[in-house]
């Protein structure tokens, strides 16, 4: 059946091939009581040794595949299988004392371990619970002498697309990736094991594809787009040809762009700018580094607050921020403080239902009203700042008074840390997002009180033009090419330049090849965008002449309509 399924893009690239479905292994525990206890124990021991050999082989394979971090998991698996006091003895005891068969004893012992790990309030241990289940299945399969069903290697000799509910670490490790083109899972998010591994191995992957297993059968032809999350099942010939063209184009482009990694972002006439990445999770840092980001221009700290009932503790936030800073070394990392409200609500924060959420209680407004929430985040940031090049910026600033109050709370957070003797960053750059027109209009005024600006184009456009960016009925009103928006951007950049402070941009527009020459001409020096755009934009910058862009931008500012401007820029 031909159809389309939408999931979450987890690892970029286009892949096409035949579906190979990996079902979760389900164990059934036999009711038998062993006649010969010693023979049953022997059965357990030889199954256990078989499993040890398997994980050792997996460890070696992962090391060879260059997935060191994933390999570590198997070192722990081996330790568990060899754990006399925690695993081997309790199983033998149950077989001997309770006359349980080996399968039941293994399931019992490892299930109780799974429960302990599950009860620990910690993402890492939750994942280890899945590991223990995985080991249980492996030993049980060996006791019963059955093959775990994920080795359908001979079914399709090449061009395989792995289709599964989710993949356990041992599943992914056993796959022969030479023949695998891509991975699709029904569950999981962009930080799941599958997503992580797919990115490491540069395999296109889509996760969270709801309805996947219901509709896809073994052998279905599948095309997946790891960027948009789109999955086409059994597309017709014409579509396949189109995908093939896009895929070839993608690969060609990717190889061409690789050449721009490690280079400076500099125009033909020698104007150097910085290209940075916007990130939304800790694991995005790796993608930013892979794409040679010259810094992180925007960390959306909201990821810590999502999909959970309680607010993240200072310690938890500190650890996440620290990892980001450490991984980026001495490159600058700009953290945007919590931008809740608008279209982002979190279970841990009770926010009122509002008629106009984008014009309502959001971002800095919430933080200034809830100092404890705000200070917890600021303290975590200041502590993490010891480990890297930390910068902090406040979102949605519309008045100097808000900025002043935010800075006072930042000072208080620092003082409280000093009083408690907690090491933290003493000197740091503090900036604001320029995304409310009021801030853009008063840019020269704000410039005297901050170390940098970051222009947030998405909100600046919607607030300047009074057009909801998510409302399809006003999509034609919402445009970055509008002269009013561009004038605000230009004047913000020149106000920063006059005051001698840095000015960057972190909205979608910063990675838009049509607009980049214009912003460059306005004098913008820092562009922050999604990692996948960086090399593309560096290539573009390398082909531009700054003086020409400057002249062009002056001409653009003389135009009065968005359509005229768009026409000139697209030429």
């Amino acid at each position: 059946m031909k159809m389309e399924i939408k999931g979450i893009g987890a690892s970029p690239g286009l892949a096409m091939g035949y579906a190979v479905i990996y079902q979760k292994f389900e164990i059934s525990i036999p009711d038998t009581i062993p006649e010969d206890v010693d023979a049953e124990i022997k059965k357990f021991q030889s199954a256990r040794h078989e499993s040890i050999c398997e994980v050792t082989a997996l460890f070696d394979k992962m090391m060879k595949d260059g997935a060191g971090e994933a390999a570590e998991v198997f070192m722990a698996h081996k330790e568990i299988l060899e754990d006399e006091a925690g695993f081997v003895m309790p199983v033998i005891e149950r077989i001997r004392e309770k006359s349980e068969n080996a399968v039941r004893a293994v399931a019992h012992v490892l299930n109780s371990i799974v429960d302990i790990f599950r009860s620990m309030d910690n993402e890492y241990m939750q994942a280890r619970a899945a590991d223990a289940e995985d080991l249980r299945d492996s030993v049980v399969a060996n006791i019963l002498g059955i093959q775990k069903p994920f080795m359908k290697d001979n079914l399709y000799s090449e061009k395989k697309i792995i289709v599964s509910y989710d993949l356990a670490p041992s599943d992914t490790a056993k796959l022969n990736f030479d023949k695998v083109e891509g991975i699709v899972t029904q569950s999981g998010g962009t930080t799941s094991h599958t997503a992580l591994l797919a990115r490491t191995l540069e395999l296109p992957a889509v996760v969270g594809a709801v309805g996947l297993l219901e509709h896809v059968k073994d052998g279905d032809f599948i095309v997946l787009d790891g960027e948009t999350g789109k999955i086409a099942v059994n597309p017709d010939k014409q579509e396949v040809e189109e995908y093939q063209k896009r895929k070839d184009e993608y690969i060609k482009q990717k190889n061409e762009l690789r050449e721009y990694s490690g280079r400076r972002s500099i125009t033909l006439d020698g104007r150097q700018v910085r290209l940075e990445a916007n990130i939304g999770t800790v694991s995005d840092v790796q993608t930013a580094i892979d794409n040679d980001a010259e810094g992180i221009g925007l960390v959306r700290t909201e990821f810590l607050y999502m999909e959970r009932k309680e607010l993240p503790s200072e310690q938890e936030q500190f650890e996440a921020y620290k990892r980001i800073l450490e991984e980026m070394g001495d490159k600058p990392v700009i953290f945007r403080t919590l931008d809740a409200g608008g279209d982002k609500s979190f279970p841990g924060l009770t926010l009122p239902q509002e008629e106009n959420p984008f014009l309502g209680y959001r971002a800095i407004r919430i933080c200034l009203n809830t100092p404890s929430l705000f200070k917890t985040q600021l303290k975590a940031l200041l502590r993490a700042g010891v480990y890297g090049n930390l910068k902090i910026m406040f979102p949605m600033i519309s008045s100097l008074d808000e900025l002043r109050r935010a800075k006072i709370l930042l000072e208080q957070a620092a003082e409280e840390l000093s009083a408690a003797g907690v090491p933290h960053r003493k000197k740091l750059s503090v900036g604001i997002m320029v995304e409310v027109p009021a801030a853009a209009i008063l840019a020269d005024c704000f410039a005297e009180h901050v170390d940098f600006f970051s222009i947030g184009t998405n909100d600046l456009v919607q607030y300047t033009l009074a057009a909801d960016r998510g409302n399809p009925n006003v999509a034609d009103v919402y445009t970055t090419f509008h002269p009013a928006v561009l004038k605000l951007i230009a004047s913000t950049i020149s106000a920063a330049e006059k005051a001698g402070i840095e000015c960057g941009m972190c909205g979608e527009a910063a990675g838009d090849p049509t607009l980049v020459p214009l912003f460059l001409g306005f004098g913008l020096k820092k562009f922050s965008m999604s990692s996948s755009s960086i090399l593309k934009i560096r290539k573009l910058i390398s082909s531009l002449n700054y003086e020409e862009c400057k002249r062009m931008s002056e001409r653009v500012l003389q135009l009065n309509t968005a359509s005229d401007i768009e026409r000139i820029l697209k030429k």
Partner: protein
Amino acid sequence: MISKETMVKLESGLHARPAAKFVQLSKRFTSKLLVSYNGKSADPKSILGLMALGAGKGSVIVITAEGEDEAQAVDALVDFVQQSE
């Protein structure tokens, strides 16, 4: 018998990623070893016991060793948890 109190400085805690390495280190010693935390004790040669102990970063634990190489064992294990990875 030797006991030493120490704080876990390992970034992800003793129960998580470093557990396997801690166990491998413990197994190098012949002494009987014990790690106590929060009223519970575990044999550090058993990874499951160690993980279930749940000693995260900042936990104050007591490491006890009894046997021929007790002094070296306690020192090595204390050194291990004192690293920040």
